[in-house]
């Protein structure tokens, strides 16, 4: 794993026996997560991987504080999570940008809500707009941007609040295969540049292997449970077509259920 100092890795997030059941119409109970326990170390890049409908997004929302678990608990730096907070930046699959705000205003939003003075806001926003490579597009509106660019705004916005944890929920799910590879490369570059604890949810094993220090593979059915873990001890930047990566991919694919 990629720890900058030689000291012991520090526990950042701890999920303890987390379970969650949703009630569907007709009072039907759908258990989505069952007894998930998980530790994430500081500045670790963790990818939660699994086929569609395996509870992985719900797990992320619980860590974000957007869902409250029925049983079990989650701690961040030892403190229980009771709701969302600026210490956790979230990036959504559907971008969730404000259509009537420019790129800059979207990135500044969290800062504005916390009453950060305007000049400081601009400075911070510009730093992250530059980091994601959107300089020159500050005054564009979301509809003027491509899918990949929209998600860069989403990433810049999450970073702007100085979170210590980044939560990404299938952020590249709407992009084509090539743009997706490009964004994976960008994500790895940004993470090397500004290390954070990252939890990244995806159904794409290639993406997981390209990015992760460690992959948590979920069972391919509800209720979601952790099936197994893989440590991806490959040098960065990685190559999607390298022998080592393809071998590990085969191992993971063979261990994944086919969900038709």
């Amino acid at each position, binding site marked *: 794993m990629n720890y900058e100092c030689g000291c012991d890795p520090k526990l950042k997030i701890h999920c303890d026996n987390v379970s969650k059941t949703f009630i569907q119409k007709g009072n039907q109970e759908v258990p989505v997560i069952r007894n998930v326990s998980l530790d994430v170390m500081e500045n670790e890049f963790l990818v939660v991987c699994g086929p569609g409908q395996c509870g992985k997004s719900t797990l992320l929302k619980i860590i974000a504080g957007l869902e409250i678990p029925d049983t079990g608990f989650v701690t961040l730096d030892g403190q229980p999570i009771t709701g969302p907070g600026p210490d956790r930046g979230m990036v959504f699959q559907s971008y969730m940008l404000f259509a009537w705000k420019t790129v800059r205003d979207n990135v500044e939003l969290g800062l504005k809500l916390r009453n950060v003075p305007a000049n400081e806001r601009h400075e911070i926003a510009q730093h992250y707009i530059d980091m994601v490579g959107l300089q020159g597009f500050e005054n564009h509106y979301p509809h003027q941007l491509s899918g990949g660019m929209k998600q860069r705004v989403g990433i810049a916005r999450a970073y702007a609040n100085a979170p210590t944890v980044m939560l990404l929920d299938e952020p590249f799910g709407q992009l084509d295969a090539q743009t997706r590879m*490009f964004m994976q490369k960008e994500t790895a570059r940004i993470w090397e540049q500004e290390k954070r604890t990252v939890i990244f949810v995806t159904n794409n094993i290639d993406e997981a292997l390209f990015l992760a220090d460690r992959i948590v593979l979920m069972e391919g059915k509800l209720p979601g449970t952790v099936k197994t873990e893989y440590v991806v001890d490959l040098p960065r930047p990685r190559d999607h077509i390298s022998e080592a990566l393809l071998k590990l991919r085969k191992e993971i*694919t063979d261990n994944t259920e086919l*969900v038709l």
Partner: protein
Amino acid sequence: MLEDQESPVKIRVNNLTKSFGDLTVLNDINFTIKKGELLAIVGPTGCGKTTFLNCLSKLMPTTKGEILIDGEVANPRKHNISYVFQEPTCLPWRTVRENVAYGMEIKGVGKEEREERANKIMELVGLSSCADLYPNQVSASMMQRIAVSRAFAVNPDLLLMDEPYGQLDVKLRYYLEDELVKLWRTLGSTVLFVTHNIEEAVYVAERILVLTNKPTSIKQEVVVDLPRPRDLIDPKFVEIRKLVTELIRWW
């Protein structure tokens, strides 16, 4: 198919050009597809792959050039041209069986033959058990399989596929790609498969046409002469994947 070099040309595209105002999207494209061949088209993002398909399907008029099927100008009234879109397109008020049979109905295939062909195809892809369900009762991947089955069912002269397995998880994608290869080989259809995913192109195709950036033309043809089922970690497979990747890499 490759071992049979004598396969007649089924599709011939001559000087295909498409412009929108001053913007030339397709620039003088020429190629042929042999009868029963599965040809893949890959190219950099934004190179006009969808415009390409829309021209071939005759959904969109071309600026210049012609598309010939068996030596005749392609005509959707005469020829059977099937199109599978990225997003699954099922009619929600029809059962799976009725959806699979829909193209045949439009083309005036008789009831008995319709049922026979629909049953055969549903059997091949393992949809028989849900033949009487409605689309909202099946999963998204199942819906795409219905669309693929419907497209094959009309015995198309040309079957166009626009990245049908785009964002599915790999396991499911492998399964559906195998299913596609099975349908294609059993029915001997002529297929043009467009994708952004290079590995997928190498996995399914007999031959790959690599496109350039706009104004789009054909950069190179790559023949995939690997036995099936193909092995994704076979060094020869990886070599072809690398070659195609280098031809279009922009990321």
